[in-house]
């Protein structure tokens, strides 16, 4: 049974009126309630239609799913384990904490689950060139990696600011044979890299496949990336049942664009007793305005092809974001999270740079696992929540990536220069 195919299998009825019956979003036009959709220039309509048709065809194609499963197993190293963080749980003094170890994947984060899927799709569609946007460089590295393996040309767009603060990942991408283009427009960060990738795509649609790195963008990206990332939650659901004999009380993940979170959440959506909590970046604090928390402190708007919650000013201009973790530094969020928030199926909170950093050190010292700064946001929220829960309850956290890439940043916070 294919990883993707199984998405459709575990559907259980819910009681919520907005979510009556098994969860089946998005609709045929890519809407999650009022969110999502296809807000793009006419020049992108054709490639997006082509992509949607290919995706719908291969989603149920046994041959494609076999190929995907084999790569996830032999190249990525799936299934990733679920680890009971006993010492950290004891220190926090409440619920038992379990970590879904996406940090153990090839390339060190969950991102590769999606790039493998999209790159295999690109090859089936006969595309010879892939492009990607990246913030921290994790998605860029994951894209360059699969491009190298499949022998595809690869161009990665990265904001000039991020190129400067993520030097090591830029070098990794170049080693892997990718061309890294520093984007000099706008705020010179992730959102501008996405703009530039879209511009490349309209210009080179004949041979180019655009691999978006999160559950944002126009339909079918939010649904497609979710389906590729849902392998996380499907595995974890089975692993928790096996380990503890029941489902977790809470599933939790950090939310940048929202791909690692939706990948964990989606297979639990119809398990109404399981609480889902997404953790955004509060940066210097939500009240300072210097943050990256559109779900907690943003408004509805349209950006990058979909309607969602955004960080924007009163004139509809997209605002600059701030987070210690480049991977959460994005002013929008996947439309499905906007819908899960409005329907109340998931809740969203935000933690500050300082709280994330404290959790980073906490996990590192008690468990010998150095998490990514993005992931550390989810860990910080768990550290707040666990003590309020009983010892026989459990929190399952998506450990979305490892912290090797963040050594420079953390050292600088500690006043050191590496």
């Amino acid at each position, binding site marked *: 049974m294919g990883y993707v195919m199984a998405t459709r299998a575990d559907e259980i009825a819910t009681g919520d009126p907005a979510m009556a019956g098994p969860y089946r979003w998005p609709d045929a*036009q890519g809407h999650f309630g009022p969110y999502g*959709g*296809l*807000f*793009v*220039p*006419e*020049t992108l*309509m*054709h*490639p997006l239609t082509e992509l949607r048709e290919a995706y719908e065809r291969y989603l149920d194609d046994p041959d494609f799913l076999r190929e995907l499963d084999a790569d996830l197993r032999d190249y990525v190293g799936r299934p990733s384990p679920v680890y009971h963080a006993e010492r950290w749980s004891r220190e926090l003094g409440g619920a038992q904490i379990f970590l879904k170890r996406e940090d153990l994947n090839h390339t060190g984060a969950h991102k590769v689950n999606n790039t493998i899927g999209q790159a295999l799709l690109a090859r089936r569609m006969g595309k010879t060139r892939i492009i990607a946007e990246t913030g921290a460089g994790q998605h860029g590295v994951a894209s360059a990696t699969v491009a190298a393996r499949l022998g595809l040309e690869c161009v990665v767009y990265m904001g000039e600011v991020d190129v400067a603060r993520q030097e090591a990942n830029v070098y990794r991408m170049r080693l892997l044979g990718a061309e890294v283009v520093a984007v000099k*427009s*706008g705020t010179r960060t992730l*959102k*501008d890299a996405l*703009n530039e990738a*879209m*511009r490349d795509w*309209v*210009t*080179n*649609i*004949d041979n180019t496949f655009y691999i978006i790195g999160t559950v944002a963008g126009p339909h079918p990206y939010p649904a497609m990336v979710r389906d590729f990332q849902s392998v996380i939650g499907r595995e974890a659901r089975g692993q928790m049942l096996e380990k503890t004999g029941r489902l977790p009380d809470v599933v939790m993940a950090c939310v940048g664009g929202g791909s690692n979170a939706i990948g964990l959440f989606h297979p639990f959506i119809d398990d109404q007793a399981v609480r889902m909590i997404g953790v955004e970046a509060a940066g210097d604090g939500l009240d300072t305005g210097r943050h990256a928390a559109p779900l907690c402190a943003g*408004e*509805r*708007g*349209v*950006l*990058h*092809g979909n*309607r969602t919650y*955004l960080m*924007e000013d*009163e*004139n*509809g*201009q*997209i605002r600059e974001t701030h987070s210690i973790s480049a991977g959460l530094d994005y002013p929008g969020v996947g439309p499905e999270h906007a819908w899960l928030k409005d329907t109340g199926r998931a809740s969203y909170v935000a933690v500050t740079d300082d709280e994330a950093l404290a959790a980073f050190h906490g996990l590192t010292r008690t468990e010998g696992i150095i998490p990514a700064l993005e992931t550390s946001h989810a860990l910080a929220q768990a550290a707040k929540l666990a003590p309020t829960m009983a010892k026989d309850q459990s929190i399952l956290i998506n450990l979305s990536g490892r912290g090797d890439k963040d050594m420079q940043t953390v050292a600088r916070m500690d006043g050191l220069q590496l």
Partner: protein
Amino acid sequence: MSRIQTTFERLREEGRTALVPFVTAGDPDLEVSLALMQQMVAAGADLIELGVPFSDPIADGPVIQRATERALANGVSLRDVLALVRRFRETDRETPVVLMGYLNPIEVMGSVPFASAAREAGIDGALIVDAPPEESHELVAAMKTQGLDLVYLLAPTSDAARINAIGEVASGFVYYVSVKGVTGAGNLDVEEVGGKLDAIRAQIALPVGVGFGIKDAATAAQVAQVADAVIVGSAIVGQIETLAGEGRAEEIAATIGVFLGELRTAIDTTDRVAEHV
């Protein structure tokens, strides 16, 4: 009849092709934009496309992106653009003005308040680049209520079904994007464009403008042979950038006026392909 319809009607009777300049409102500032709009009309512009600055212009190439950034650095908002057109209308009641921009500033204002403010300011229509027909029901209804036109893009990759869907909601005119790419990109193939325009005209009764890739008098003249309107953006905005960068903003209106005069002459002296006259 709307100002846009009246304009195309008159041009058709005269056997002429419309000259449609695009400039970004507030680049380098709103005073220059006003003078520029007036000068462009004096130099032969038939309709003005006014870019509304947006922080994330995904369909624009580097030249118009930088114009947007200059305008945003001055804090120019959708409200300021509406106010600019209101001032333009104090002296010009004939020349249609179409806003070109992205959905989010309108989304934040609300479709209904936007359409009524636009009408009140003397705007004639809007082309919202990232609001395709399937996502613009609300905006279409709001614009229609105010008697304003919604202009849509068509691309080389638009098939018969897309052309049909756009034909059902478009009004005023349609805008054919002549190259695969962003504004300011590439070289256009006039023969290929002509063929595509025939296909569009077979399904849509509105005038068809052609833009993206028209750089100078020669390309304008070529496109004028097949199009109902020649739309020129980056070639104008690039000159504005140079002058603004050299601190010669007061020369912008005059310089662009001269450039448009050249385009006007080239367009009017070219032979239109018979069937479109």
